[in-house]
Structure formats: structure tokens, C-alpha cells
């Protein structure tokens, strides 16, 4: 089964939530919808599932228009971010629910339920009721229900957001494998760029109800077609600054000028927006082609085994990543080196001019 959205828009209460989205999804693929909260990921998934109808545009399955076809008559499984289970049914019956509706025989139901339970580590909990297990276990029950159904289209709406760290890592690897076997279209919504990178497949970046860019995940990551796409696909947030190229220098306002190195050397003179991700900026040794800015430490955030160090310079505050737990103190003078070979340069409309590889 292939799924296509054609010029789909959704308007609710006078506000446009989805703007003219077109997207094609092929069977057996992993598709990540990447966007911040309220970017429209959930709305888009509800359209794909058939839970909602688009205000305009068409939804096609295998070329057939299914825009008005209700969800019960589609081959869809969906896991909501706020997990849903039937409270008075045991975990076993919750997982078996779609199979019971489809009237499969008991032996087949039992086989599928136990296999899914095994994949998700729910075996010891099958007799419990949802309120007797933890939130993460409830979410796994909901995922198991989506697995057993064997649907052609599987929609996972930030399914791992409520799980603990270790399980998240495991499932992130397991889920694409589980569904790849079934040949289903897997759509996975997430707000975390790292998750999109780990899942691979294709990624569509979403911002304010629009698809900014769609393509293979790594291509979208390395070659953003728009500054907004780079913003969506950066965590910590993308570092940005307005620059003016003049001959062989770039000026950051009146305050600072640096030699135009790396990707900046080849662009024609004029105003641009420079952007770079935190991982190509360092406080250590300069890069071969480096933009070096003097500044002082503003803040060191610890995120897992990395630290996000905010550096205040004459032209704004930038974030860089350091391995390990940073012991840098706010106020310390330092210099920030940005790899000029890998920076992004966008024109005033946000279109890429010189594409570094982005990190």
C-alpha cells in the first residue's frame, strides 16, 4: 500500500493548521515527521489515519481517493502520545482487541499477542489491568496493540516520549525492525532531531503546519533546503547571525569582521544569514578553516553525557557542544571556533547559498 497526501489543508476555527501539504509514502519505509510541539504532526497523522477529514485536498491510498473513508474501514494502527488502553481489560485483552474484532481464531490471536508481548517485554504483565502497570508499560501495551494488528499504515505519535531512557533506546532500534518485516508504511512523529537521525529512513521537517523539507533523513540533516528546516533539525537550537560578505571578509554588523574562510570564501558579496549547529563549534583547538570569536561563558547546561555551553560574544550568544560534564564557570573568557567548512549560508529568503555539510 502506498499513501499520498495531495495539497491537503486543514482549517479550524478560522485558523489554518495544515498548509497545503503534499507527501508520498511508500510501503516498507520509515518516515519521520520532525517538528516542534504544535507544528502539526498530530493533525497530519490524524489525516493519514482517517480520524479527521482535510478541509481541502485529497488522501490517496494506492491511487484511490479515500479522503472521506472512515478509519474503521482502513488498515491503520496508531499509537497516541498520551497512551490509550481499555481500562477494564487485561493487558492481554488490550493487545488482542483488534484481533478479536477481526474475528481471528483463538490460537492465532494467542500466538500474535505472545509474540508482541515478548518483543516489548510485557510477558509477565499480561494478566494485569492497565492501571496496575507503569506509564511506560501502558505505552508498550498500546504499541503492542499496533503491532499485532498487522496494519498497512502504522502511525506512532511521539510513542517513546513517556518512556524511560533505557527502554527508549531499545525500542528506537526495535520498532523500525519490527515493522520493516511487515512491509507497512511506518510514520513516526517526534520533536527530537536525535531521534530522527537514529531512526533513519526519510524525514519531513514540519513548521507551523507546513512541510518545509522532505527527503532521506541524512540528506535533510546535511543539506537543509530552507533555514527553517535547519532550525527544526537542530538541538540545541541552531546558531544564527546576520553577515555581510565583502570581498574576502565577512562582517558581523559593525562590531566584527573575520576573513571569509571555508564555505564563505566562494559566495558573492552581499548580505546573508550564517547558521551553524552546536557540534561544529568548539572551545578547543581551531579548525583548519575557522571562524574564531572571542567571548565569555554565559552558561553550561548539562545534557546527559554532553554539555551545551553558551558563549556570549560581541555579536550574540552561541551554543556549542562539549563532551562530558562541563566544569566551565560563567564569566570565564574563552574563544569559540566555528568550522567554516561546514557552516550554512542562507540568503535573505532563507534559501541555502553555500551548503557546508552541516556537521
Amino acid at each position, binding site marked *: 500500500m502506498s499513501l499520498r497526501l495531495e495539497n491537503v489543508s486543514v482549517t479550524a476555527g478560522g485558523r489554518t493548521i495544515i498548509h497545503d501539504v503534499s507527501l508520498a509514502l511508500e510501503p516498507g519505509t520509515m518516515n519521520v515527521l520532525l517538528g516542534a510541539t504544535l507544528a502539526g504532526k498530530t493533525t497530519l497523522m490524524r489525516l493519514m*489515519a482517517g480520524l479527521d477529514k482535510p478541509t481541502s485536498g485529497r488522501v490517496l491510498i494506492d491511487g484511490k481517493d479515500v479522503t472521506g473513508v472512515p478509519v474503521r474501514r482502513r488498515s*491503520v494502527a*496508531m499509537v497516541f502520545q498520551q497512551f490509550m488502553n*481499555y481500562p477494564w481489560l487485561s493487558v492481554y485483552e488490550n493487545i488482542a*482487541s*483488534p484481533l478479536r*474484532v477481526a474475528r481471528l481464531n483463538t490460537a492465532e490471536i494467542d500466538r500474535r499477542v505472545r509474540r508482541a508481548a515478548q518483543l516489548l517485554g510485557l510477558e509477565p504483565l499480561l494478566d494485569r489491568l492497565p492501571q496496575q502497570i507503569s506509564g511506560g508499560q501502558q505505552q508498550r501495551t498500546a504499541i503492542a496493540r499496533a503491532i499485532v494488528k498487522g496494519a498497512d499504515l502504522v502511525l506512532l505519535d511521539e510513542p517513546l516520549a513517556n518512556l524511560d531512557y533505557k527502554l527508549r533506546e531499545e525500542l528506537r532500534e526495535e520498532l523500525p525492525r519490527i515493522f520493516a518485516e511487515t512491509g507497512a508504511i511506518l510514520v513516526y512523529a517526534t520533536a527530537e532531531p536525535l531521534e530522527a537521525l537514529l531512526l533513519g529512513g526519510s524525514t519531513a521537517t514540519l513548521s507551523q503546519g507546513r512541510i518545509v523539507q522532505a527527503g532521506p533523513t541524512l540528506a535533510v540533516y546535511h543539506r537543509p533546503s530552507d533555514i527553517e528546516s535547519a532550525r527544526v533539525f537542530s538541538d540545541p537550537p541552531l546558531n544564527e547571525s546576520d553577515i555581510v560578505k565583502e570581498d574576502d571578509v565577512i562582517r558581523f554588523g559593525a562590531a566584527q569582521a573575520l576573513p571569509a574562510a571555508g564555505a564563505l570564501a566562494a559566495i558573492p558579496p552581499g548580505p546573508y544569514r550564517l547558521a551553524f549547529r552546536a557540534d561544529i563549534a568548539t572551545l578547543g583547538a581551531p579548525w583548519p578553516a575557522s571562524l574564531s570569536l572571542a567571548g565569555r561563558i554565559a552558561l553550561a547546561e548539562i545534557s546527559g553525557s554532553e554539555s551545551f555551553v553558551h558563549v556570549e560574544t560581541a555579536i550574540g550568544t552561541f551554543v556549542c557542544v562539549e563532551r562530558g560534564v562541563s566544569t566551565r564557570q560563567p564569566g570565564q573568557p574563552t574563544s569559540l571556533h566555528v568550522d567554516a567548512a561546514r557552516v550554512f549560508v542562507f540568503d535573505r529568503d532563507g534559501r541555502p547559498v553555500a551548503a557546508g555539510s552541516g556537521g
Partner: protein
Amino acid sequence: MTRTGVLPRIGLAIYLLALMLPIYWLVNMSLRSNEDIMSGLSLWPHHPSLGRYFFIFNDSTWVHAFGVSLTYVAINTVISVTVALPAAYAFNRYRFVGDKHLFFWLLTNLMAPASVYAMPFFNLYYAIGLFDTVWAVALAHCLFNIPVAVWILEGFVSGVPREIDETAAIDGYSFPRFFIRIFLPLIANGIGVTAFFCFMFSWVEQLLATTLTATNALPFAAVMTRSYSAAGMDWSLLAAAGVLTMIPGAVVIWFVRHHIAKGFALGRV
């Protein structure tokens, strides 16, 4: 945080005593003879007798009336809950033109006293031959019970997340199957509470019940009011009938007590 003071306990005991006193007095009276009752204050029956109860059980008018009352109350409760369930679901889950106004308008039915409706009902039912049947009373009580039932149930429906409906739809449940197999169990407490309120209202309501019936479908309470006109007041008999009137209510409360406890905590009661 348990309070173990003596004073609160005494206060509570006095309160409960005051609450139980009329009921006790009714039971007390029902076990005494009329002469005994009229002769003076007596805190407990000196010669207790179940005679008046046997009299009621052996009198076909009383037994028939008791059956009639239970029948129309049961019919009314079933109709009210059955009609109110889909209505409450629709009011909560769908937007339609005038939904809020309609919801409020339902409640305005409760603003007029029952006596306002007695005459039109009488006239209507007489014309179509429903007068003096259990259906007459059962349907008339719907006028009050359905709005209350819709209102209470809507509160419970709103407590069930919409995603449950959607999860069931994705699992492939048809709507009727979803409603009966998935949704009703989720609001079982609400249904219990609603049925209780419908039952109670219909059971104690007298005006419509007596106006819309004559002999065939005379409710229990109407027989009670009739029994003192014959030969003075039969205090003891009235008291016994009063005790019997309370029994179905007590039984219903006993059965739905867990639902009510949860229902009061969760919903709109």
C-alpha cells in the same frame, strides 16, 4: 490526620440520631396498635405486632398498587437511561447547531412544578387512551427524568477521553459495538448513579402519578392517601405502608452504593 476527639464523635452521634429518629418513629408506629399510638408517648412498642404488615400483604389493592408503582418506576428508569445515553454522548462528542441551547433547554423542563404539567398530561392521555395505565405515569416522569439523566451522564461522558473512541475505531470496532462493549463499561458508575436518581424521583413523585391514574394503575402512595378517608385515621396501617415504601429505595441504594460513591466523586451529581 485521624481525629480522635470525643466531642466530634458525640456531635456525629447526635446528628445521626436526629437523622434516624423519624424513620425509627415510623417503624415504631407500624408495630403498635392504633389505641396504643393514641394513648401517649412511648419510646418503643410494648406489644409489637406485625399485624398491619400482614394486612397489607393480604389485601389485593395494596399488593396491586405496590406492583404498579414498581412497574412504572422500572419502565421509566429504563426509558430515561436508554434515551439519555446516546443523547449525552452526542452532546459531549459532537458540535451541531444550537447544541448548547438545546442542552440548556432540557434543564428548563425542571423549572416548572409538576402540577403545571398535570392537566395537559391528563387531557392528552385521556384522549389517546393511555389514562390509568402504568405507561401514563412512566412516560410523564420522563419529562423530568430524561433531562436530569442527560445532564448527569454528560458529565461522565466528558470524563472519558476522546482517544478511547478513536482507539476503538482504529481497532475496527463498529460504532454500536464500540458503544456497548467499550463505552458503556467505562461509564458504568454514571449509569448506576443516573438510574438511582431516576428511580428515586419516579418512586417518590405523587402528583402526576395520582392524577394520571384511577383504579387499574393506582400507585402505592395513592392507596395510602385513600386509606384514611374511610374510617378515620389508621395510623398503624399508614406507618406500615410508609415503611414498605422506603424498602425499594433502600434496596436500590444497597445495590448501587459503590457506583454512587464513585459517581459522586467523579461526575456531575
